[in-house]
């Protein structure tokens, strides 16, 4: 473990930096994509539908003659907004619940952790189907739904860590000295579980991207004409025979992004949290 940390400081860790740089690029595109887009992503050109790549449209066009490159560059935004929004929601909600449950024990603990068990015992996509299939979906609905689905994951991590720390003697001592609950949790517990949370957050971002794109693929996510990668793949599937590259590009972008997040998550886990495998 020591050696690993030293190595990390001395020479660039490719396993960490390659996915990190990739994700950085994805972020930049999410921020500045619309400025880079050569066309208005919603601009219809009925005389140039389902074209293969050309000088005018490097990645070709979709069934409305819209520029695929432009739609890819803008379609990342809803996906990222939902993934990071829901992860933030899940982290804040889950950590708060987990900390309090672990700290208070007794009935609150039972209530919170049993509810988590129930939520965890259900395939995420079915939960999402139930909610999103019924209400008009948009970025807000998706973010809240996916966020709620991943609350239990964070709650479990926070809860497990909290009971570990709470029973440690120094906390007992501080408690005896009259430290407030809030101060105790924020000062002594939270820093201890930060690394586990970072790892969990990485996993959740990847899972949320997959879930959002899966729902959009089923036509239950971001509504057209606004583009999102999952939705583009879902629609392009109908044109596989006419223009296979229409499916290929958004698929590639999505797969590479998730791969980068997973690689980063694996590496972060190795570095920050070597006990858990």
């Amino acid at each position, binding site marked *: 473990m020591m050696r690993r940390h030293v190595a990390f400081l001395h020479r660039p860790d490719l396993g960490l930096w390659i996915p990190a740089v990739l994700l950085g690029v994805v972020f930049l595109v999410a921020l500045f994509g619309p400025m880079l887009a050569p066309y208005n992503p*919603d*601009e*219809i050109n*009925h*005389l140039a*539908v389902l074209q293969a790549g050309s000088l005018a449209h490097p990645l070709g066009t979709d*069934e*409305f*003659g819209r520029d695929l490159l432009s739609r890819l560059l803008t379609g990342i935004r809803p996906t990222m907004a939902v993934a990071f929004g829901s992860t933030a929601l899940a982290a804040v909600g889950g950590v708060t619940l987990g900390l309090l449950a672990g700290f208070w024990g007794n009935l609150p603990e039972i209530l919170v952790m049993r509810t988590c068990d129930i939520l965890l015992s259900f395939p995420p996509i079915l939960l999402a189907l139930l909610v999103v*299939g019924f209400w*008009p979906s948009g970025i807000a609905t998706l973010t809240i739904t996916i966020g709620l689905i991943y609350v239990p994951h964070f709650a479990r991590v926070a809860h497990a860590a909290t009971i570990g720390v709470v029973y440690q003697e120094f906390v007992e001592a501080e408690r005896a000295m009259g430290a407030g609950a809030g101060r105790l949790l924020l000062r002594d517990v939270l820093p201890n579980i930060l690394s586990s949370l970072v790892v969990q957050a990485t996993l959740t971002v990847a899972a949320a991207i997959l879930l959002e794109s899966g729902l959009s693929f089923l*036509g239950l996510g971001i*509504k*057209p*004409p606004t583009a999102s990668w999952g939705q583009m793949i879902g629609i392009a*599937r*109908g*044109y596989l*025979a*006419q223009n296979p590259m229409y499916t290929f590009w958004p698929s590639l972008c999505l797969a590479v992004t998730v791969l980068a997040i997973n690689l980063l998550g694996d590496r972060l886990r190795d570095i920050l949290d070597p006990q858990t495998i």
Partner: protein
Amino acid sequence: MRTSFKTILLAATFSLTALAPAWAAKTLYFGLSVEPSTLEASVQAGTAARTVRLAIHRGLLNYGVDGKLSSELAQSYSVSPDGKEYTFILRKASFHDGEPVTAEDVKATFAWLLGPNSRATYKGELGVIDSIEVVDPQTVRFHLKNVFVPFPHYLALAESAILPKAWLEKNGTNPNAAPVGAGPFQFVTWSRGREIVLKKFPGYYKAGKPGVDELHFQFTTDDDTRVNAIRTGDVDIIEYVPWKDLPALKKDKNIRIESTSGPFMMLQFNTHFEPFSKPEVRQAVSYAINRAVVIDTAFNGAGTPLYGLPFVKGAPGYNPALENYFSYNPAKAKELLAKAGYPNGFKARLLATAQYGYHMNTAIAVKSELAKVGIDADLDLPDWAGRMAKNNAGNYDFVVAGTAGDITDPDWLSNFYYGGKQLVRMNNSPYFDDPEINRLLDAGRVTLDETARAKIYDEFAKRALELSPFAYIMWRDQSYAVRSNVSGFTNLPGFLSFQSGYSLENVTLK
């Protein structure tokens, strides 16, 4: 190493293909676009259900393959000079249970259809029947409350099929009873979620028909699956060929496409929504949409622009001078908008559905076209059930609709344009109620003289275009794909495309 693996895989796949047995010689597999929600004879529950019912049932009249009224269980009929009495002479025919078709059955069918527990779709139109008289076992007479010229057309609908009296007494209130009719095929089973199986009715009144022994209706809801199924020969006929797949299927040597240009796409305006309450604004929408954009994007080019009213050539009220009443003219649209008081456009909610690609894509194309004249259409895309709920409640500013007239008689317009008591209906523009239009439609229903009638509908057409409660976009090609070993299947012309199931009696297999 890699090559040998490839070879093995290839060999394995080919041997699997070779093992596939040929289908039983006289079984026809038909790929429906959806599992029918019900086979209840009097309920119009979509094209899929109609196709199945048209294989099982026959009415006194039906629409034939030429699109004209064809005498089925009725050998002939006559109308009294005052137009209020219709007398039908029945032919010798029998139901699937072996009992003959008699005047009593006809009377029982319509009594049931108009009875208190009936869910019949065309109960309103057939409500014109005052009484039914059984003259003798082979003769039946309808007495109408008032003159109703399109009456035979409503009798020819798939929903006016004749059912056995005995069956009705037993099963009249049970919508799930195994259907019995007098059509070319009799019901065998309905495996839920998978297929409906019918078999040849040997006692069918047309000698030598039907030409196949068994008919399997398989439910292939997904567009791509349905297309794959016809390509691989899993099914012999499919309905609702997706427009994007037409070019590829046309190239396939084993498949032919039967197309009809009959159903149309249009926009319905909620006339309580302020900008759309003004005819100029509705006209502006018609001028603003380049029909080619919708056709090329949402229908892969398979459609015909509609710049007037959806009147088929030769129909009463068809006027070549009005055929291109509108044109693609965004400047004119802007001018009309300015005149109506919206020089900078406005925002409106456009309802469509995400469940059917052609509805959604039409909405997307319309949105993009309207944006060019300053109208900002906010898309509302629930699934079909959600869209229907909003449609029937008038909960929209304008809506994308794809439909066809029910009958070939111009009275189909009543359902679309008539005001009256119920001002929010599925196929009208909510709250549109013009006394002049109502008057003309009423007159059209009761005018027996054909020249006079044509004149009424001509007048109607002018008024309808002036007020434009609908913006018509295009005729869409409605296609069936048929494998080349199948002959005799006809896509009925125009509006009647949805009743093509009638021609299944002519189908033979090579």
